[in-house]
């Protein structure tokens, strides 16, 4: 075979580092885009604030009830925002068929999955951190078991939404009625993860006398591992024609 100019440009690098560098590049690109369209990001943050606020109104001024279920409202606010964030994450790829552009570079499709999912998880974690003081103010909760554990639950829960969410968003973004399809597919799927995250958050907020936190965290970790693996295996099939 004739060695062309391209073949010499140095594409001979080991596979693992290449997947890693590509993932970092995709993640970095998505974060830059997020930052450059920060007006949208702000709107998303206020949307989640509004969601928290709405729960207070829907339930009336029963402080005890609000406090008890704070974890549930917190995660519902994050879940609703996640649908918007995930949808946006593939809308930008559709705009000029950039996803095709990435495929043809070529790039390992797994890197797109990992980069996008991590980017979305990061966004949700950030959202959670911003929502926390609002939740404290609105519902009067205190963090009984330390902010570190809360952060761990937040990170695990956000990733649990992001792995399957990225696969489903890639699918839904190309279908008709994509705005309905993504939550319809995603909500029932992440229900166990949401349940675990809500329970774990509640325990971290109100204390854990019966030592149940471990089993809920275990469920979250298992969910993460399963959908991380499935996403890696299936995402390439989704975006290749």
């Amino acid at each position: 075979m004739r060695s062309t100019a391209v073949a010499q440009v140095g594409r001979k690098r080991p596979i693992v580092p290449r997947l890693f560098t590509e993932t970092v590049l995709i993640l970095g690109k998505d974060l830059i885009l997020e930052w450059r369209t920060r007006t949208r990001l702000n709107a998303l943050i206020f949307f989640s604030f509004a969601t928290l606020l709405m729960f207070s109104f829907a339930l009336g001024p029963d402080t005890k009830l609000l406090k008890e279920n704070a974890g549930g409202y917190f995660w519902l606010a994050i879940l609703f925002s996640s649908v918007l964030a995930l949808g946006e994450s593939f809308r930008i790829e559709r705009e000029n068929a950039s996803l095709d552009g990435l495929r043809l570079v070529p790039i390992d499709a797994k890197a797109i999955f990992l980069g996008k999912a991590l980017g979305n998880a990061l966004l949700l974690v950030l959202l959670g951190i911003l929502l926390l003081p609002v939740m404290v103010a609105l519902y009067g909760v205190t963090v009984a078991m330390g902010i570190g554990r809360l952060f761990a639950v937040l990170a695990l829960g956000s990733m649990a939404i992001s792995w399957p969410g990225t696969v489903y968003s890639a699918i839904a973004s190309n279908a008709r009625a994509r705005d309905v399809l993504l939550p319809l597919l995603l909500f029932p799927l992440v229900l166990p993860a949401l349940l675990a995250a809500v329970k774990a958050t509640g325990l971290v907020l109100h204390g854990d006398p019966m030592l149940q936190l471990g089993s809920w965290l275990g469920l979250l970790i298992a969910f993460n591992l399963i959908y991380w693996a499935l996403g890696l295996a299936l995402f390439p099939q989704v975006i290749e024609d």
Partner: protein
Amino acid sequence: MGQIPPAVEVNDVSKRYGTRWALARLSFAVARGGSLLLTGSNGSGKTTLLRTIATAIRPTAGTIRVLGLDTREDRQQVRERVALLSHTSFLYEDLTAEQNLRLLGRLIEADFPSSRIESLLERVGLAHRAKHPVRQFSAGMRKRLAIARLLLKAPSVALLDEPFGELDPEAVIEMEKTIAELQSSGTTIVLATHLVEQGLNLCRERLHLSEGRAVAA
């Protein structure tokens, strides 16, 4: 076997969309360093053909080889050697021109020199807009950035879909020059355009498509 395979070899390729055949049993070849002009009216299958060769879409039937590599089995290797200038620019609207090119460069090569990005932007006349997001660009500027994207990849086979579209007359001449340069550096060209005149100046062979079939022009 000792024979060098052609740059592009399309063998009995068909592509079906719904109930319509976008490509119908098309066969042709382009020699290495050669150039092929694709003509035909809208919807004649030019874009589909280019996208199929670029491995963006899979043919329904038939095989395509690029530099002897099968587009089905050796997809990634084909992609490393082919670049597509498409109707859709593949650009991120909210990244700057420079960031768009740097992303591509680093995906190709981890330590892609930024001096090459500067010189590429210079070459397509966008150096002064390097830090502007693509969203502010006119259609012609996007086209020029897209050509920079193609040049950055330094492909063995360049697939150009309407490269003259949305360009002003000066830019058309610029584009012709760029394509000629690509050719003289040994790049194989497949060019689809309405502007038959420009195309004929640049290409040695011509294939006229009508309803997904090759017909006499």
